[in-house]
């Protein structure tokens, strides 16, 4: 009940805010906070949150700056701004893989001093463990979680039903289901299992997920990189088998980018797809060929192995060059609050960073599958934490892409990855 009031109040505030602002003469000593978000992060959905904050904090105005549409484009823009120590931006929404880099570069203001006496552990306890972990770098709170993301296995409920299959729990099952469906459908355009192998950030997860599930651990004891092992070979072999032996994955997997998977699945050409959370809303849209025929489960694992998935998501950070750090820190805390998280979950289908919202009826009404997502995001693993993560990522994705394309043998790729990663991560 209370929660619903909050949402309604938010909407009302959103409507009222421009009127109120318009009626007031420019207040003396007004602080303007500039918040940087990506084009994909729904400025339209963010705006009401900012309006609400303005209402609660008279004297503070929040402006939204929208940057490039991809994580890379935003990084490019932020790099130029922050390298130049430009104070133009106060608050920024950054990718989950970036905090270590921002901390090392001295771009993000540690937030510990702005928590208003609350101790960091208490603040972080509210959040999903993976995300609470990701925001602390070198024992400093670099940012606060905004929303979560993770990779899931999407499947076609109609096809599974047709062949009397259950949603798979293991990769072995997934592959055999896929083969069965492909054989049964006899449709040359139908793909059994679609995943991403193009040289993009998501391709790191394509490798890391089976690698982790097979017991791999990128950085072992004594900071030694351990990738050239059975787990590494097994991870590559799995995808190569899926493509070449079982022929359930498309031959052009090395070209598949994230949204290609989404489009293929949305058009009914895929039985199983490994994809981030954003697919759901689109699969249920009017344009979708698979509307109402989509199921989501946690990613399968290998027979007898632990499940694991990659986490994605975004975080709010305060720029080290902001001239309004206290206000900015206040805004960040507001944006990382339950109110904001719920608003984003309902209006943008962003996975909440607070576990109890996964059971919230308002949230579940628009996103019924969130309930099933909770275990996934709780167990999700983060990609290696390093201030040189971009280099780590580049090494992994280039090699994975090479193996999937067939230009490199798994062994050659693993050897190169191990030696180059060792140099970066030492």
């Amino acid at each position: 009940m209370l929660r619903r009031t909050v949402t309604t109040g938010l909407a009302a505030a959103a409507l009222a805010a421009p009127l109120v602002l318009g009626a007031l003469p420019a207040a003396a000593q007004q602080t303007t906070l500039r918040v940087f978000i990506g084009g994909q992060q729904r400025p339209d959905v963010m705006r009401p949150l900012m309006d609400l904050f303005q209402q609660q904090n008279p004297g503070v105005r929040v402006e939204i700056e929208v940057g490039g549409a991809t994580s890379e484009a935003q990084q490019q823009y932020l790099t130029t701004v922050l390298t130049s120590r430009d104070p133009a931006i106060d608050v920024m929404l950054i990718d989950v893989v970036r905090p270590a880099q921002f901390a090392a570069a001295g771009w993000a203001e540690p937030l510990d001093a702005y928590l208003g006496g609350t101790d960091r552990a208490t603040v972080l306890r509210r959040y999903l463990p993976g995300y609470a972990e990701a925001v602390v770098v070198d024992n400093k709170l670099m940012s606060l979680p905004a929303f979560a993301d993770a990779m899931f296995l999407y499947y076609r409920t109609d096809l599974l039903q047709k062949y009397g299959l259950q949603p798979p729990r293991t990769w072995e099952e997934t592959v055999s289901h896929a083969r069965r469906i492909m054989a049964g459908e006899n449709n040359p355009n139908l793909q059994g299992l679609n995943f991403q192998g193009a040289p993009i950030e998501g391709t790191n997860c394509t490798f890391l997920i089976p690698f982790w599930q097979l017991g791999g651990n990128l950085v072992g004891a004594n900071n030694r990189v351990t990738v050239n092992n059975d787990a590494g070979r097994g991870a590559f072999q799995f995808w190569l088998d899926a493509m070449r032996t079982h022929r359930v994955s498309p031959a052009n997997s090395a070209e598949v980018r994230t949204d290609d998977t989404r489009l293929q699945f949305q058009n009914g050409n895929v039985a199983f797809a490994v994809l981030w959370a954003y697919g759901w809303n689109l699969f249920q849209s009017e344009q979708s060929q698979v509307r109402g025929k989509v199921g989501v489960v946690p990613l399968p694992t290998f027979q007898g192995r632990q499940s694991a998935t990659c986490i994605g998501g975004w975080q709010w950070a305060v720029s080290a060059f902001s001239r309004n750090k206290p206000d900015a820190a206040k805004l960040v805390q507001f944006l990382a609050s339950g109110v904001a998280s719920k608003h984003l979950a309902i209006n943008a289908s962003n996975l909440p960073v607070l576990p109890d919202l996964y059971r919230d009826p308002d949230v579940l009404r628009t996103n019924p599958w969130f309930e099933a997502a909770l275990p996934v995001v709780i167990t999700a693993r983060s990609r290696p934490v390093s201030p040189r993560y971009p280099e780590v990522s580049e090494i992994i994705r280039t090699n994975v892409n090479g193996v999937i394309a067939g230009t490199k043998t798994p062994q050659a790729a693993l050897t190169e990855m191990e030696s180059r990663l060792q140099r970066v991560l030492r």
Partner: protein
Amino acid sequence: MSAAPAAVATHGEAEIKINRLWLFAAGAAVVVNGMFPALWVLLTSLKTEGELTRVPISYLPQDPTFQNYLTAFAAQPLARFFFNSVVVAGLSTVLTLLVSAFAAYAIARLRIRWKNVILSAIVAVSMFPLISLMVPLFQTMRALGLLNTYLALILPYVVLNLPVCILILVSFFSAIPRDLENAAMIDGCTRLGALFRVVLPLTAPGVFTAGIISFVNAWDEFLLALSFTSSMQMRTLPVGITLYQGEFAFPWPIISAALIVAIVPIAVVIVIFQERVVSGLTAGGVKG
């Protein structure tokens, strides 16, 4: 001096016997080669996203819709992007022409030392990849307080286009007989007056060519526009258009609609001035 010899040359070619069919086929090949991507974008802008990923793909939109255009204008301030692009490309073109006309005139006409060195330096400087200059450039712009202003884009675009424009104008200016300026100076012009009253009107085709090259280059530039502007109100078309895509999703039909909005003015300019674009290059004979 004028476009007249160009036309003569073209008709001269006509005397070489050409089979009408071959003529048509060759023209069609050129048209298809140049237009099909733009045409495809146009067709795509009339399709729904669902139709876009149908297998086998459809060529003509089965159910043409203008919805993508409406969405393009509603989802982002496309009109504002358009306005910004016009302002930035327009002003930078004017400024480029002014600066390069001065420089080219000095190089082509005046007795100054190190003329060739200066010209080579200007060309050499243009070879520096702007991509790698982004960070220091950004710092410069910030120090000048120009970030997020039109000037932050206009100045680099002027520099970007200077070498080509100077080279074109130098070749045009050199083709103008010196005595024309002398006559003007005796008739009562200052040297600058002679440049504006006699030399520039006479080299109009060259000026026009330089102008359209710098306009198109400025209209299309992406990286600097992304980095040196931050507010939505200052975005140019190429940057604005990328804002339609999400982190993962790439809404081709809407982007296509926005692209058509960006391409059409350029195409119109080319069609209207096509005679001049090419004959402009002709008259001065870009001969280095």
